């Protein structure tokens, strides 16, 4: 009874911190929230020009603009959340040293701030689809489940990174480089069928590839290669990796968080 009362309070704190983060993110800038829409759109425009006009990569993919936009939006959430969460403990060092609350609130609040932006960006995608007269199918019902999986995976990675970052600041640049590699190791600008068959299975084991393709399959009416088509009866594997990632991240965080106040 007492505990649930406490948890209710912490839920309020998460909400308030996430809302504050959202409010402060673009404070002082003229366009405010519009920037979080314009940033992925600008990236989209650059990549679209490069891969349809110059490399003609997009020609083979149906609905390539929306396909690309989905990839960029999803990637934007993953990259932003992991890097923001990584520093969330250290950035709130002053708070941590002076007041007690479960430390996990900080990365959760930070990730929710990003998630809010992400949802708004998804709405924009649907706007584009309506404009381009691309129909929505029944498969869209899968999207909430896929987004939950995506959030859980991203949070797991974030928890792991944020607790390590307190002790080893090297994680910062390492993760930056790793993100660059992941950007190309994930089907964002290309379709998996461009990948040689022997690497395709490895590629589709990646939770990011599985999530990105599943999201596209649920949003777009056209045929999309997903993990289940590639992995067959092993379609569960990416999901298991997601769960393991979250558990490892969570345990690492909880184990180290008791000493954050001393180490940060």
């Amino acid at each position: 009874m007492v505990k649930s009362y406490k948890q209710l309070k912490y839920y309020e704190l998460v909400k308030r911190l996430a809302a504050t983060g959202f409010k402060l993110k673009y404070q002082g800038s003229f366009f405010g929230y519009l920037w979080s829409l314009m940033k992925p759109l600008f990236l989209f425009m650059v990549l679209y020009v490069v891969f349809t006009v110059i490399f003609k990569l997009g020609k083979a993919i149906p609905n390539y603009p929306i396909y690309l936009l989905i990839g960029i939006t999803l990637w934007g959430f993953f990259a932003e959340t992991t890097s923001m969460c990584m520093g969330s403990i250290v950035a709130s060092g002053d708070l941590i040293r002076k007041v007690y609350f479960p430390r996990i609130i900080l990365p959760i609040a930070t990730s929710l701030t990003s998630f809010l932006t992400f949802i708004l960006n998804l709405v924009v995608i649907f706007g584009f689809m309506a404009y381009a007269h691309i129909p929505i199918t029944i498969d869209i019902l899968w999207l909430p489940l896929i987004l939950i999986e995506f959030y859980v995976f991203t949070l797991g990675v974030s928890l792991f990174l944020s607790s390590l970052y307190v002790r080893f600041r090297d994680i910062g640049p390492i993760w930056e480089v790793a993100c660059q590699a992941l950007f190309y190791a994930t089907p964002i600008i290309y379709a998996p069928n461009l990948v040689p068959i022997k690497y395709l299975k490895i590629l589709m084991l990646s939770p990011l590839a599985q999530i990105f393709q599943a999201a596209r399959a649920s949003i777009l009416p056209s045929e999309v290669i997903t993990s289940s088509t590639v992995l067959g009866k092993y379609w569960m594997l990416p999901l298991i990796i997601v769960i393991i990632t979250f558990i490892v991240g969570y345990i690492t965080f909880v184990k180290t968080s008791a000493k954050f106040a001393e180490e940060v």
Partner: protein
Amino acid sequence: MTTNKLANKKSKEVAIRVEAVSKTFKVPQEKRTSLRGAALNIFTKKSYDNFEALKDISFEIKKGEFFGIIGRNGSGKSTLLKMLAGIYVTDSGKITIEGKLSPFLELGVGFNPELTGRENLYLGGAILGLSKKEIDGKYEKIVAFSELDDFMDMKLKNYSSGMQVRLAFTLAINAHAEILLMDEVLAVGDSNFQAKCIEEFNNYKEQGKTVVLVSHDIGTIKKYCDRAMLLRNGKIVKIGKAEEVGNEYMQQNMSDEELRVAAEELRVATEEESNIVEAITESQDTITKKRVKITKIEFLDRNEKEKNVFKPGEQLTVRVYFKRYISEADLNFGIALYNKDGSYVLGINTIMDKIDNDIYYRLGYFQVDYKNINLLANSYYVATAITKNNFSMPYDLISKSKSFRIISETKNEGIVNMEYEWKK
């Protein structure tokens, strides 16, 4: 059965129980904050300096008590408070908290300068465990108490520091915790607001709230606390009535001060000695020409015990030893007091006071008792001189070499704490 009940009742009265708690901080000799450092050191044995912040601390705080924790910097009092708040974990031992505890130690934790006063109230409130609804309900009261009605929609960064503190303090006292932890926060705002805070504090007593107050100011502890605990180097020195613990702390500070002053004197003395040696080698004659020489100055208390730190109201005796190489009588002995800032406090001599000097020739020293040194806290220097009776030429003069300290609780300003009484 009855004993069980009794025990139950007793444990109910306890708000905070600390049992054999220790805390050691490992201070790495070379802090590793990079993977490379960690990788390089992975096979070498890690070397740490262990800093024992708290050693085997046990005590209890009863419900409704105002409990003070006092000690010098580095005594472990803040570490202890952080452990009570749950910010640090214990290495060993156990802390039991009965009741809702305020989890913060400082005012305004979590405030964001970019948000308005109103938004900060909600954010800060959430950090202290208040829901939006609860703050909604108290909003009017908080704003009225903090006297910030016209500023709630202004960004916090544009607040004056006094306004910030007022907002923070008002929020803190409205966090409806049963146990409050406070780290020197009492002196906030202007005098008007302070009066309100004191009133609020007295309300706490009536409401039966428990307050743990950490400070290094004896006055604050004596004023507000029922009981107090004195910490020194991570150990409990004394626990008991605030008044007694405060006095113990005062004594301890004085003896620390004695050691410090003594060390300083020794340093100055050895320096001077080497100077004298130089002087002798340089010009032997100037020394030998001296016909009277001051050899030593002593500060004594009423019991003739030598010391360097005094409290107002004590008796200070200054005794000056001298050697006479001439038979001529009619010397004039003088002593002057200066404070550290160079202000001349008092100058006296035996001729002006018409004192018969004969006894001093026999004793080999002259001495004056300042019956009540009603001086304010500071360092004071003594200058002393022996001259011919007509004041003309000093046989020997020692200016401002030896000093004593006054420690006092009063916050009055100036040099002398004259006896006074306000009209009632």
